[in-house]
């Protein structure tokens, strides 16, 4: 697909509480990253 693409990584977290108090709704944070050779 992308010739110089080495890998794709994902970060995915659900934050259930903050400062000892529950988060309602839960906060979801997501990151996606591509690693490529400099073309």
């Amino acid at each position, binding site marked *: 697909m992308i010739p110089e693409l080495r*890998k794709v990584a994902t*970060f*995915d977290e659900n934050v259930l509480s903050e400062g000892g108090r529950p988060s309602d709704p839960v*906060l979801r*944070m997501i990151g*996606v990253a591509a690693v*490529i050779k*400099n073309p």
Partner: protein
Amino acid sequence: MAPVLGEMLTERLIALAGSGDAIEAYGKACISGTSCEVEHASELIHTLQFGNFYREAVGAKSYLGFTNIRGPANTQIQIPLMDKHDTGRRSHYLTVQFSIYDAPDVDELVVALGAATRGRPHHRIGDRYSDLAALGRDVENPAGV
């Protein structure tokens, strides 16, 4: 390259989030490897050909906040987020942080997109508009220069 990456990363992110509507805050980031110029990774993200895939998927028109840095493998990727419709809505000022243990290599680039489904839990900073009202300033010229 930028559009191919923009499309691929957007597709992956939306699939994880479930839908574009689920994403309330968004942003982007890139890291150039240590033998590269900051410009090299910047070229890939600072173009509508990259970001518009994400805008279309989440129904937004605003600027994508960003970081564009250089660093070795395992440099932390920090993706600053803002509300996709309203950059002054401070409840949604959040940052996605993570790293890839073996990237970027000296001749590699890392390109990333970030998302949040809501604002900070227990957020209690006023928004930009209440600041502006208190200062008697305008959205277009907050410092009145």
